């Protein structure tokens, strides 16, 4: 088990964590776009409230991924940066505008004013763009046709980016994020807002988005047999059990959601995303950027990767407990150290009663 493979597996887990946490942020932005009609304001407040505390912590996983990639596979990272110049720049613009828009809307004093509505529009549109471009880029890499025949990365060579396979996977990424966000928001609506009607509306949205994701996923799978032979063969030889499990979990998510077991649905949707990305990784093994860059020929020196892994472990020792503390203070229902003493606990529900 050489060091580079260990590092790649860890990076893949960071990708999954980003998809599950960061993806939910983008999905919430997408639902912000579709927040119309009677429930619109309550839906927007829910999104604002749910995103507030964890926004920045989720977004740092993406930076972790980039830095990890250029640490462990510098040559592959350089090629990806040139070949995917266009989609990455557009995805970056989406992230930037989305992050700024969220903050301005959240802190705008007059939430009905022009300023808040304008940035609200920027927030939801950019939440749509970024997952699409990241999904399309992933598909272009997996298709094996990212680099021109001479193998030298060229930013203008975008044939693999506008292929039907890439467009389908891009769209699937958006609907997957929307499904994850909708499942989280049903729980948020039920547990923190105690708003049954809002939870129902998000349950419905999660079911619809989940169905669309399944259809796009199947379409993508079909297209990959034609357009990305490497992925397809990788799937047939190694990854087919994982693909089947992904489909089973998909069905299980839909049924638990339909039956209103929201907490189990949340666990299942996370597992669904993990297995889906796992299937892609397994199918593409051992390529980083198919056919030219494999793990062995683009990995950094082993002693450097070991140093990175050690620093990773030390970092995790600090980050994981702090992240757990963050979630326990805001999201998890049981008491955590440092919370307001019980004397204030009585005031809180009372205030909540007065406020709503």
């Amino acid at each position, binding site marked *: 088990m050489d060091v580079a493979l260990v590092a790649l597996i860890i990076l893949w887990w960071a990708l999954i964590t980003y998809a599950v946490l960061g993806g939910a942020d983008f999905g919430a932005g997408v639902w912000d776009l579709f927040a119309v009609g009677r429930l619109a304001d309550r839906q927007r407040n829910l999104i604002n409230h749910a995103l507030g*505390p964890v*926004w*920045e*912590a989720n*977004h*740092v996983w993406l*930076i972790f991924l*980039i*830095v*990890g990639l*250029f*640490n462990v596979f*510098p*040559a592959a*990272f*350089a090629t990806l*940066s*040139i070949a995917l*110049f*266009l989609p*990455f*720049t557009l995805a970056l*613009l989406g992230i*930037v*505008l989305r*992050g*700024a828009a*969220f*903050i*301005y809307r959240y*802190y*705008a*004093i*007059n939430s*009905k*004013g022009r300023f808040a509505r304008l940035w609200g529009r920027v927030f939801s549109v950019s939440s749509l763009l970024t997952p699409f471009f990241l999904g399309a880029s992933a598909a272009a890499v997996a298709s094996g046709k990212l680099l021109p025949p001479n193998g030298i990365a*060229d*930013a*203008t060579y975008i044939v693999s980016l506008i292929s039907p396979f890439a467009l389908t996977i891009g769209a699937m990424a958006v609907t997957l994020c929307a499904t994850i966000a909708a499942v989280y928001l049903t729980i948020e609506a039920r547990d923190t807002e105690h708003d049954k009607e809002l939870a129902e509306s998000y349950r419905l949205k999660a079911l619809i988005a989940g169905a669309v994701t399944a259809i796009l996923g199947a379409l993508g799978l079909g297209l990959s047999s034609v357009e990305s032979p490497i992925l397809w063969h990788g799937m047939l030889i190694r990854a087919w059990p994982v693909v089947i499990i992904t489909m089973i979990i998909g069905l299980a998510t839909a049924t638990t959601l339909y039956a209103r077991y929201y907490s189990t649905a949340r666990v299942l949707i996370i597992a669904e995303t993990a297995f889906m990305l796992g299937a892609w990784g397994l199918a593409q093994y051992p390529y980083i950027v198919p056919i030219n860059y494999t793990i062995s020929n683009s990995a*950094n*020196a082993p002693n*450097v990767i070991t*140093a*990175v892994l050690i*620093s990773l472990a*030390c*970092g995790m020792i*600090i*980050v994981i407990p*702090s*992240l757990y*503390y*963050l979630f326990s*203070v805001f999201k998890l229902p049981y008491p955590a*150290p*440092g*919370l*307001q003493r019980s*004397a*204030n606990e009585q005031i809180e529900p009372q205030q909540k009663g007065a406020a709503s």
Partner: protein
Amino acid sequence: MSNLLAARAQMGTSLAFHIIFSALGVGIPLLLCIVEGLALRTKNPVWMMLTRRWARAAAILFAIGAVSGTILSFELGLLWPTYTKFAGAVIGLPFMLEGFAFFTEAIFLGLYLYGWDRLSPRAHWLCSFPIWISGLASAWFIVSANSWMNTPAGFVIKHGKIVDINPLQAIFNPSTPYETVHMILACYVATGFAVAAVYAFAFLRGKRSEYYRKGLMVGILMAVIATPLQMVSGDFNARYLADYQPVKFAAMEGVVHTEQGVPLKIGGLADPNTGQIHYAIEIPNGLSLLAYLNPDATVKGLDQVPREDWPNVLLVHSSFDGMVGSGLFGLLVAVLFWGLYWFKKRTFPENRLLLWGIVLAGPLAFLAVELGWMVTELGRQPWVIYGYLRTKDAVTTAPWLNISFSIFSLVYILLAAALIWLLRQVARRPLPQVKAVGEGYQVIEPNIVDAEEVGV
């Protein structure tokens, strides 16, 4: 605009924008920690009003810091892939460690900014410690990566390949101790003067309550401690550069020919092609004395490298003078303030001229930070990794860079405009009513009736 110029312009603008929020991102958490600590200990509600107000402004500034920082991480790859391939192999570690520092900072920031009602007063205050410590760490790691670019170490090139990479040696390259200390002090100088300037301006417009006086005092206290230390650190930096980065030193001081007993030239403008400095105040043997404490010491001039390898002497020399000048002005204002304060037996000096000086010192301190980085980055040209990789070889082969530069400049202008509008709104909000309750405070934020349009 050539591809290379557009890439350099975009990188420069991105970093010039990000550094403002980086400096505040390192400085403000320490101020918050101090002020909240005072609020808990002295039970004076004014300290808690300051904490609440600064926390609200800090939340906005951190978000923009995080967003602009993300742009930079993408841009290192998007604009300079060859640099990232070279640097990623050797100096990737501090970027990874910096990632952890940001992560811890972002987590405890979430707890601090949104945990007012959920956390007990003591726990809430303790959350501010990991923020300023990890802010410091992130600055240290990222500037050690930049120091490596100025004095590369920890690897060997054998027939075109990078081998024997030693990451620790790369982080602790010769420039790291100098640059990191100077940068961290710069963050405290800039934050201190920025806070002092805001309250000095409010004071001049007639707002004289204890809230405004305490805000100004805390800001100018940080400034009066950090600025003299910054001068000392700057002096060490300059003397260190004379030996380890002679070309940058020569460009900074406008020394063209290697000779003995070189004069110190203050101010003046360098003629770009000859490198000669005109209309400067000349102190004979001044530079040799300053750099080597020996008036006849030889100082290496720009003639030590071929003409096309000279950095842009005009910009580097003027940036250096601008940085030192702004720093000295700030020091003067801070020392005057505290001098008057002690001389008049601890009464708050209300001299209008001095207050206007403090207002000016705020933006000037940030100008010093920007100019300081211009010295470091432009002084390193035409190399991106000194002696190994030239800037023109590091740029991406992707076209459309001038379009990318214009789009990102627009984004930055948009972000800055919306930010100023929002911060003014936060400043205009009436102060929260704060009452000491038990161990902590009961804070009632005034909610603005939507109809009452505030500001614009």
